């Protein structure tokens, strides 16, 4: 169904984005295109639709999709090809739903001919939506995130294209949502639909791909049946990606601090190598200001070197909780104590030392960095806050040290945040937090936008910092991150609260 041979795409300046790429996918197969960001996955997938991004040019190679060469088509023929033969779903499919159309209009627009409600309802049922009838009159804004994703996928499949291309369908989603997406996909596709799945998550590839093609810097590092690539990767790139899949991680990374909860709900510390409790929360109640209570009765003790993961589906109050700890969104009840000292609920009432001791790396760290200042300026400012007397030489060393801690190259120092990649800006944000020499570091989904290998590196660095006494609260919906880095888990569920204990090392 898909035959790509010796494809070469260069930038205007001559730098290769894709170099001699060969890809063959048979009809009805699911092919996962895996690779780090920048490896050319999206560029390769776009060629299937006959599209090359502006600024790039195709210099060699043949592309054949469903017996046609998309680059040889033009005008109406190309549009017909893109409508009937192939469908593309972008990373956040909900964004492709026009907000002021009803769902019926959205689906009919894609399906083309006049479809009656029964047909649309059947399509939505295949997509896993429970009561499709009443959904047809609503608008995207009135649906939940999961429902929007299903509708977007249903829309793509409504014309029954022969090929479906998905660009990072599960990135940024929690485990339950990932399951949902994959189930929707199963329901919608037919035996003859060929699926190209772009992802950097090997576990997703493992679950649904027949064939895995690993791209590295524009070249195909490895390709073959999924089981073989996952079980016995040959190329360095494939090995790195498989190893970075945190679920398969077996190397322990931290000192053991085990808390066991028995049936009556009391916690008994089994073994604590360090007993200085840095942060303790007692009976904390948090909620949205002016809104309902999201979580109540939260008790937590964080010793030096310990890390607790805060997990739970979206909307259960994880971010609200960490905002309360930091003082942005004052807790309604309960106390927060740092090294035994009770902290004021509002950050405006805390001292500077108290503020610097608990640092938060927020959910979208790029927004936290000032776009008009260079990284050097921002990090120096952060360093000066707790060490005001640093001279030139000492500052240079301190900058080097803090960049090293997050595995960043010194050349980012003279760049401004808008020119950094997502992973780089996330690391700069973590570096800034670390420059304040905090006792407690709170990471709110801080590694979600990183490539698997970079994420692994950053997590390993954080694990190392734990050894030197840093305590961490890690909000995450990725079980792999929680398992890798943390030794206890605080699980927030719908409206109840459950403290969970976790594996020993």
């Amino acid at each position, binding site marked *: 169904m898909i035959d790509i041979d010796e494809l070469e795409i260069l930038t205007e300046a001559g730098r290769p984005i894709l170099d001699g790429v060969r890809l063959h996918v048979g009809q009805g197969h699911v092919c996962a295109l895996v690779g780090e960001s920048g490896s050319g996955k999206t560029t390769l997938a776009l060629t299937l639709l006959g599209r090359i991004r502006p600024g790039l040019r195709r210099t060699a190679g043949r592309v054949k999709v469903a017996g046609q060469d998309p680059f040889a088509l033009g005008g109406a023929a190309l549009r017909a090809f893109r409508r009937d033969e192939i469908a593309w779903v972008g990373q956040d499919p909900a964004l492709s739903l026009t907000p002021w159309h009803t769902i019926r209009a959205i689906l009919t627009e894609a399906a083309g001919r006049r479809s009656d409600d029964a047909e649309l309802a059947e399509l939505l049922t295949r997509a896993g939506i429970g009561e499709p009838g009443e959904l047809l009159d609503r608008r995207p804004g009135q649906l939940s995130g999961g429902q929007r994703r299903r509708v977007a996928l249903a829309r793509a499949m409504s014309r029954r294209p022969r090929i479906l291309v998905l660009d990072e369908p599960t990135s940024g989603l929690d485990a339950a949502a990932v399951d949902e997406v994959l189930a929707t996909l199963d329901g919608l596709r037919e035996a003859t639909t060929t699926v190209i799945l772009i992802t950097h998550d090997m576990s997703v590839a493992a679950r649904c791909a027949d064939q895995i093609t690993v791209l590295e810097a524009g070249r195909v590092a490895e390709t073959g049946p999924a089981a073989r690539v996952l079980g016995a990767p040959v190329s360095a790139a494939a090995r790195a990606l498989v190893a970075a899949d945190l679920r398969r991680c077996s190397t322990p990374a931290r000192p053991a601090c085990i808390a066991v909860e028995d049936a009556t709900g009391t916690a008994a510390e089994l073994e604590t190598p360090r007993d200085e409790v840095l942060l303790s929360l007692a009976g904390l109640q948090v909620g949205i200001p002016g809104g309902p209570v999201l979580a109540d009765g939260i008790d937590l003790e964080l010793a030096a070197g310990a890390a607790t993961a805060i997990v739970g589906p979206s909307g259960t109050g994880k971010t609200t909780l960490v905002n309360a700890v*930091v*003082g*942005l969104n004052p807790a309604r009840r309960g106390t927060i104590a740092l090294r035994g000292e009770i902290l004021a609920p509002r*950050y*405006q009432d805390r*001292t*500077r030392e108290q*503020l*610097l001791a608990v*640092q*938060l790396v*927020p959910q*979208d760290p790029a*927004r*936290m*960095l*000032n*776009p*008009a*200042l260079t990284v050097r300026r921002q990090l120096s*400012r*952060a360093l000066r*806050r707790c060490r005001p007397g640093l001279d030139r030489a000492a500052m240079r060393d301190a900058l080097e040290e803090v960049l090293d801690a997050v595995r960043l190259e010194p050349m980012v120092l003279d760049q401004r945040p*808008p*020119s950094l990649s997502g992973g780089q800006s996330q690391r700069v944000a973590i570096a*800034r937090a670390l420059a*304040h020499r905090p006792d407690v570091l709170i990471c709110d989904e801080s590694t979600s936008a990183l490539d698997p290998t970079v994420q692994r590196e950053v997590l390993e660095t954080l694990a190392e910092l734990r050894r030197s006494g840093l305590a961490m609260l890690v909000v995450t919906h990725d079980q792999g991150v929680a398992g890798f880095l943390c030794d206890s888990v605080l699980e927030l569920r719908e409206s109840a609260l459950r403290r969970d204990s976790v594996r020993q090392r």
Partner: protein
Amino acid sequence: MLIALGATAVAILLGLVLGILLAARSRVTRAGGAVLDVVLVIPSILTMLVLIFGLGGGVATMFLITAAVTTPFVARYVRSLVVPMLAGDVVVAARLAGDGWVRIAAGEIVPRLVAPLLTDAGARFVGALYLVASAGFLGFNPLGGDADWATMIQANMDGLGMNPWASLAPAVAVVLLTVSANLLSDRWMGRRSR
């Protein structure tokens, strides 16, 4: 022309400070913002005529008038830029690190205003030039001589049929100046953001 340039620069500095101050949320600033909006509605030529009438002509007056008329525009623009910044993550992160408001204003907010203000400066400069030129054209002759373009345009209007270029040349010069000033500031902004 120098009047316009100088007055624009002063207006930008004053407008920057005023805009940042008005961005804080309080009853006083809300009232101040309302006053600002009213001032903006008054046509600048009207303000200029009234002030020239009261203060007399001359370079200093013209400078004062131009700066006074341009400042509210800059202040309003700055205020609209700063208000969302105050709620944004950059300022929140600085507050969570214990920074005071003055330090945040100088260190985090002002650097982000440089680019938009320089772009706006182009438009403000055109406005200021227009004001000075109008004063000259209406006969107030602020510079006390006939060396500025606006006075030249006005003075030579009578002889337009005989020598159109006497009026057209300075008009073209004004256009070239304003267009190139704007292009320059845009180019400079583009390079800076890369």
